[in-house]
């Protein structure tokens, strides 16, 4: 087992007996430290379920998940998920600052004052200076998303699992958030796994795109994105390597759709 995160022959199903539904079947992947990997796949194929299994919040029925060489049985320190339903994952009785501090509860080697300083620093890094004392329900959805990301990073995370974090934002904010995420990943040494249904976004952000098949899902193709960093919203999207990767992923997804339509 190499890589900061590995999945070997992972299988997961919901229910039992007649209502049993296989979601993941024989899935393998390995993420190297420092990598930015995008996961794309048809909607409902099991992407969220996969992230839950990778994070230790769900235990797979088959196979193993490993994080930093240890088998994952419960959410390990150093890994954090930014949930698809991020606004519900913020605790409404805590201020934004206290939400970030809540994420730091397992952080060691810092006293309360140091934790607070660190939390404020990260809130500023995600673009929220001056909103630390607000409650999540006092700020916009986009800001809530930033708080959730800040909380993830603050938990002394090395690996961020992001579940469709930009699905709900408008195009301009989306581009800004993409660049912010790339910037944060670099600045705070985060290995990132990004789930998205937007193929362009998947390619733009990633060092590698893993394409997931229809349910029960597994990795059906790996596409290495050979593009320099930092990425640029205009020139990166015009580069031949970007267009090639995008083409390959889109063709694959179209063939999966057609396969589904025929069967």
């Amino acid at each position, binding site marked *: 087992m190499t890589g900061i995160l590995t999945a070997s022959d992972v299988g997961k199903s919901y229910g039992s007996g007649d209502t049993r539904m296989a979601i993941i079947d024989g899935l393998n992947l390995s993420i190297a430290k420092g990598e930015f990997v995008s996961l794309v796949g048809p909607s409902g194929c099991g992407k969220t379920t996969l992230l839950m299994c990778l994070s230790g919040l769900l235990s797979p029925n088959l196979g193993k998940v490993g994080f930093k060489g240890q088998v994952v049985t419960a*959410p390990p320190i150093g890994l954090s998920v930014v*949930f698809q339903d991020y606004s519900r994952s913020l605790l*409404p009785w805590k201020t934004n600052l206290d939400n970030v501090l809540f994420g730091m509860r*397992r952080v060691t080697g810092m006293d309360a004052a140091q934790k607070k300083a660190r939390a404020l620093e990260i809130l500023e890094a995600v673009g929220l200076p001056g909103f630390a004392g607000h409650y999540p*329900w*006092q700020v916009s959805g986009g800001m809530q998303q930033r708080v959730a990301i800040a909380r993830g990073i603050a938990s002394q995370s090395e690996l961020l699992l992001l579940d469709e974090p930009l699905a709900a934002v408008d195009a301009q904010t989306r581009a800004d958030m993409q660049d912010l995420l790339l910037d944060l990943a670099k600045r705070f040494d985060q290995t990132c796994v990004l789930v998205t249904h937007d193929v362009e976004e998947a390619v733009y952000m990633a060092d590698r795109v893993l394409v997931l098949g229809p349910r029960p899902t597994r990795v059906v193709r790996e596409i290495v994105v050979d593009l320099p960093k930092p990425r640029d919203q205009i020139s990166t999207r015009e580069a031949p390597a970007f267009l090639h990767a995008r083409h390959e992923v889109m063709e694959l997804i179209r063939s999966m759709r057609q396969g589904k339509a025929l069967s």
Partner: protein
Amino acid sequence: MIPGIAVLAEKFRVPICIALVLGVWQIVFVLGVVNEKYFPSIPTIAVAFGQMLTDGSVIAAWATTFLRALIGLIGAALLGVALAIVSDLSPILSRGIRYVSDVLQPIPPAAFVPMAVFMLGLGSKLYAFVIILVTVWPPYLNGVAALAGVGPVQLNTGRMFGLTNWGLLWRVKLPAALPEIFTGIRYAATISLIAVIVSEMLAGRDGIGFMIFKKAFAMRTPEVFGLMFLVAINGVLLNGLVNLLRRGLTGWHMRMMERSE
């Protein structure tokens, strides 16, 4: 002109309501619909009430009744929430407690008193028993519903940051459930006061309930109405205390609700 009146009416709504009630009362009195013996005029009641306030025994009865209701409410709220927590932790116990609650909950406080007199005598144990037995259910039922209703995303968030069983309960579930629990406690405050008055009437040797009974049999109608007014004040005080606590513990929720209106 009209908006000005609306603003004034809003500002003075409490005195206006009181004046309305007193006015209707006085009209009924003047019309002589009910025998004066049972329906005294407002001034008569006011005089009787004023005299009672100078009577130490009335004040003592008032305080006694209030304390009983308060202590009963605190006990019932704590027990109700504890039962809800136990139910949340153990499905088997949850079903057992639910059966007991289904059986006991519809029984009115008055029905408990005779049995409790034999079992517990006429002392404070009686009050504790009756009050808690009828007051515990709203905090319990609301607590169970609220704890079960905590969202999976919030729970997963807690677990992701290393919380398990008790930590999750204490740091995520209870804070999330508290606003709904307080709805139950506010309801329980009213029930607690009813239970105290009924117990005092049926088995008491002191307290406002006992006094109302005594005065009623002596046909001291103005004083009975005065005592009823004291009971109402107790209700307002008890509600005020609960609201104070609610504001302190779940002020975030109240402000969040005000915002979304």
